[in-house]
């Protein structure tokens, strides 16, 4: 019984239910929705589920970076623009090198995209950690500037390129799964192990809870904040690479447009508190999968893609209401808390959580 109760309170439990419901709706509309078949010409597996996994790869990347930024009580609004920068660098490099089969060209493109993202991420980190600006405003400035940088890189054009190995990032398969998804999950696992097997994750959380106290406890916030923003930018750049490799074109105004909101949404769905101090990598990944499923479902039901935000809004509203004190005390029959004014955010962090979450991540 208590186990069921714990599950009900885990936010990503609801996300899994959400994915299941969406898939169910699709299956009712078309019973063959979940079917996976082999494409006779390419010999690769095809199916709607694989499509969902492929489009989820970029969202998983930006949601992963956003998770750590939000855990430090920050926010990174620049991830969408950073995706455009990554895609623009890659496409521009590949179209200049123009060797359709070279693996070297692919690695050059990826390396340059990562390098620029790390520089831009470091600027974010500098503004937040050293200058002391609010993360919201520093990354907002970066969001505007990075979109401009993407435009400057491609001269305002939607550059396309041909490079078979790079195209395989999104269109190839490993063991029947889309390559980009496999890479994304590998990155998630590596970073999760790194965060939870070392003290780094705890340090990030402690900065999110109380930067002053953690400094007194001997944690230096600056390098960690720097690292978090660089990581977020680099992962966003990887996400951008995934999303341009699907079509081998970068659209300077379209690539990653409004994706920062998807990333925040995925993180919130995954149960990471926006007040900082607590994060769940598994939750964010599942949140990203839910968003990818939602995007595909809306398209599948024949609703114009532009209407997707309305459904995302409903998801956000339901989730934040479920997380709110007022609704919880009403729904779960807790001792009725008085109508508390918002005021300073209450520390809702469960200090004993990290130990149990470690299992959660590995599981």
């Amino acid at each position, binding site marked *: 019984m208590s186990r069921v109760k714990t599950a009900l309170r885990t936010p990503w439990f609801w996300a899994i239910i959400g994915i299941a419901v969406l898939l169910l709706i699709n299956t009712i509309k078309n019973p063959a929705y979940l079917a996976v078949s082999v494409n006779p010409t390419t010999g690769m597996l095809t199916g709607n589920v694989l499509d969902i996994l492929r489009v989820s790869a970029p969202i998983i990347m930006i949601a992963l970076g956003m998770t750590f930024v939000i855990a430090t009580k920050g926010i990174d609004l620049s991830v969408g623009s950073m995706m455009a920068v990554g895609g623009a660098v890659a496409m521009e490099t590949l179209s200049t090198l123009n060797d359709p089969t070279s693996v070297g060209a692919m690695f050059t493109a990826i390396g340059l995209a990562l390098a620029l993202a790390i520089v831009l991420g470091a600027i974010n980190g500098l503004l937040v950690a050293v200058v002391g600006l609010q993360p919201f405003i520093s990354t907002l*400035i970066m969001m505007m500037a990075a979109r401009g940088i993407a435009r400057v890189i491609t001269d*305002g054009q939607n550059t396309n390129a041909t490079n078979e190995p790079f195209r395989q990032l999104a269109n190839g398969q490993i063991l029947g799964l889309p390559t980009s998804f496999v890479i994304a999950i590998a990155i998630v696992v590596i970073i999760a192990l790194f965060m939870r097997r070392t003290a780094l994750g705890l340090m990030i959380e402690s900065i999110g809870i109380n930067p002053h106290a953690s400094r007194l406890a001997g944690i230096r916030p600056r390098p960690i904040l720097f690292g978090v923003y660089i990581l977020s930018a680099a992962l966003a750049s990887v996400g951008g690479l995934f999303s341009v490799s699907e079509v081998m074109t970068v659209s300077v105004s379209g690539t990653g447009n409004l994706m920062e909101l998807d990333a*925040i949404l995925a993180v919130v769905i995954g149960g990471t508190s926006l007040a900082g101090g607590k994060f769940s990598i598994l939750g964010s990944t599942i949140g990203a999968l839910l968003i990818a499923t939602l995007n595909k479902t809306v398209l599948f039901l024949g609703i*114009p893609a*532009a209407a997707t*935000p*309305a459904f995302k809004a409903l998801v*956000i509203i339901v989730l*934040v209401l479920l997380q709110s004190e007022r609704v919880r005390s009403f729904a779960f029959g807790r001792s009725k808390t008085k109508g508390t004014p918002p005021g300073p955010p209450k520390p809702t962090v469960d200090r004993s959580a990290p130990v149990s979450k470690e299992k959660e991540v590995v599981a």
Partner: protein
Amino acid sequence: MSARTLAESVPPVADLPESRQPRQVKRFSGLWERSQTLIPTLAALVLLFGMLIYAEVAYGRVFHAGTMSTLLVSFAPTIILAVGMTIVIVSGGIDLSVGAVVAFSSVAGVMLMNIGINGWLSMLLMIGFGALFGLISGVMIQYFNVQPFIATLAMMFLARGLASILSTTPVVVAEDSPLLLLATDWKIIDGPKVNDFTITPGLLIAVLVVLGGIFFMHRTRMGRTVYAIGGNESSAQLMGLPVARTRVWIYVVSGALAGLAAIVYTAEVGGKAQNVTGIGWELDAIAAVVIGGTLLTGGYGYVLGSIVGVFVLAALRLIITKDGTINPEYLTIITGAVLLVFVLLQRVLTRRRAD
């Protein structure tokens, strides 16, 4: 009970020369502190005139009735949004939904007019739609403890999505719609050739909104409560100010102003409404507010400052379009750089105040 209280029995010491001096020092330091909150706004004003003079010298035809009136008319919706955003940001919140609300209000309003609802009534309804979105965010923020950022983000998604469900193709009002009356050109100064100073009713509405905003923030109780909430919410609560009611109102006003901006904008573009209108307008409004010297942490700021901020953005755009050699691709980078300079300036000032 004729006994004097303890305080009355103590002889006054006001005449002592020592006591006068500290008071004067205090007054000066108070004045200094108050003028410091004005520094970012003054800096914006200096920058604005610098940019305009540079543009006049470099390209000419800037201090020119025709150019000025075109600029003012095209930035009227941004001015309206900036006033609403100032109120929200002074209260320590943020409203990301305004751009999307403009899109929804204009599409919904034009569709209402097209199915035969009276034009003036439809315009009222457009403001009402905006206010409704604001009400929902306000209630989520105040009563369900949702962060303003997330609540208005949800409203942004909702409004944009609903606008797209209504129509993904542009909808246009009939030629005789009263909406188009708002874009009538009123010639104020009849200059030689095309050098006329013309304004539109839309611009007049924007000016009235600015005046209303100034009056609201500095001459009403609710305006002072807004500053108090932004300064220190717990103190405002303890002082017995109506925090809950005021906060919901702040977002309702911001939403209603977004609806009004939708009316002015739709009239200006000839009654054409689209679901993709207003993408990024919230950023313009936030940028204008920040450039105008309002602190994003709340508690400080002036409506007029934000208007200066709008003009700085307008002048930037003017210079970039007049100068053919600046790539339009650099526009967002330059805007970002200007924004950064102002935020850094604010940072330096607030750090000094905190010491």
